[in-house]
């Protein structure tokens, strides 16, 4: 009998530094499975963000570049424009993509750059110790919103999938989550779809993955899953927001 479950070739054989209950690891696996299944490992270049996934290149096993905070879409643009035959993806957190890198992601999407973005939205700055992000929920406590996010002072959390889907340029924009097996299968389908559009040279593609950060949310992994399902998914609703014609 053959093996039915094994480590994807696109993942390195190593331990990650992610906290217990963090969904970064699950998302890495889905990306790696996709790359294996599409047989593109030898021509893929990943771009690591500045955030908890800054060391993603240690966990993936193919060419990788490491960006400055928020600039991954510009780097992906540079690579893809000069080497359209390469498969390029950025892996970015919500502070990285929706705050400091807002300009780069909007313009890359609007130009219809033919790369893929995996956008990990955990509603907080994980790496720097739990500060407020543009995606932090109203009243959510963080180290820089200790009394809860005050929307009259800092506005409502930004819905990136909806915002990017509003651009007129064709794109594939989807939002998924990986907090339970039933969601993981859908997320995998979306990620594979996103890479497939790139493979077909069709459009820019982005999958927002609503994620957990139990460490900085001050929750157990189980509480984090419950809070994500009840609070985050009510605001960040999963689904395909834009599909190319």
């Amino acid at each position, binding site marked *: 009998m053959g093996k039915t479950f094994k480590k994807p070739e696109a993942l390195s054989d190593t331990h990650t530094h992610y906290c217990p209950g963090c969904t970064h690891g699950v998302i890495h696996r889905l990306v790696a499975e996709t790359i294996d299944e599409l047989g593109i*490992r*030898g*021509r*893929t*270049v990943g*771009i*690591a963000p500045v955030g908890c996934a*800054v*060391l993603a*290149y240690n966990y993936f*096993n*193919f*060419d*990788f*570049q*490491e*960006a*400055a905070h928020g*600039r991954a879409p*510009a*780097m*992906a*643009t*540079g*690579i893809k*424009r*000069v*080497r359209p*035959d*390469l498969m390029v993806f950025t892996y970015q957190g919500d502070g990285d993509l929706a705050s400091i890198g807002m*300009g*780069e992601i909007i*313009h890359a999407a609007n130009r219809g750059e033919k790369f893929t973005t995996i956008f990990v939205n955990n509603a907080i700055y994980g790496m720097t110790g739990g500060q407020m992000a543009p995606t932090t929920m109203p009243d959510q406590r963080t180290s820089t919103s200790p009394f809860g996010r005050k929307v009259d002072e800092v506005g409502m959390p930004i819905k990136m999938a909806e915002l990017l889907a509003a651009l007129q340029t064709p794109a594939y924009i989807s939002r998924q989550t990986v907090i339970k097996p039933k969601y993981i299968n859908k997320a995998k389908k979306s990620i594979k779809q996103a890479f497939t559009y790139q493979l077909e040279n069709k459009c820019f593609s982005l999958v927002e993955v609503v994620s957990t950060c139990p460490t900085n949310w001050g929750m157990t992994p189980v509480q984090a899953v419950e809070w994500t399902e009840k609070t985050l998914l009510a605001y960040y609703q999963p689904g395909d927001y834009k599909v190319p014609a």
Partner: protein
Amino acid sequence: MAKVLMKGNEAIGEAAIRAGCLNYFAYPITPQSEVAEYLVRRMPEVGGVFLQGESEVAVGYMIFGAAGAGERVFTTSSSPGISLMSEAISYIAAAQCPAVFVNIMRGGPGLGGILPSQADYLQATKGIGHGDCRLLVMAPASVQEAVEMVMKAFPLAEKYRNPVMILGDGLIGQMMEPVEFPDHLKTEATNKDAWATNGMDHRNSKTRNLVKSLFLDPVQLNDNNLVLKAKYDRMRAEEVMSESYHTDCDYKGLIVSYGTMSRVCRTAVDMLKAEGIDVGMVRPPDGFSVSRKGRCRGSDEAVVHPCAEHRDEHGPDGRGC
């Protein structure tokens, strides 16, 4: 090749193509926008890439991405834009990727003005980006020199795996002069497969490449800085250029100037000479070789009075950087 009359900015764009650089990313800013306006037509003719980015910040990283993937790439900008690119320049230097940046300087600080200026000397030679990073800098005094320096810049960037800057100004960019393009670019083959993220299949390799600047382990960070320092020392030792004018006499004073100003000063030296006053001139075309100690390496060991302040962090031996 016959001489052609060309505007500096256009000649710079053409020189890059003749140097085999077919990838250009930029953001408009006076007085260098003609480079983009020239290349948007010219790049498609040679099968090259032209892209107007959304900001100089983004362009800096487009350059980083393309350079990391092992392709020849360059951008042009002017002073405020170079400030925005300096973050990326630090990352590119740290990750040891070759790339060429052209600064067609204008007056500053701040928004300054759009007329030519030479005010970014310290930024280019000592203060670009954060951390211990250095550029190779070349400052042309004519459109012809700009062409030659641009063509030289690519192999130099590849030889050292380091960003190279052409430090021109609005005069170089806007002036029309007869230029002659060298026919062939002599390039030593460099092994990009050893480091570039050009795809494992592409280089027939089973090992992946990383382009990165993060070294969380302080020992590794120190090691990377020592590698860079050794490289910067090698650049100083091997690439310093220097030119003297009217220094083989008993001169009363010596002018140090670079770029277009050296051309103005050369005329001043001639005029003074006609009046019977001997003044010499030294010019570091690389913007590197004059130190605070007032010695210009490669020329005679005269004590000079630099017309710009030169900080020298490399000790009393008079070595500039």
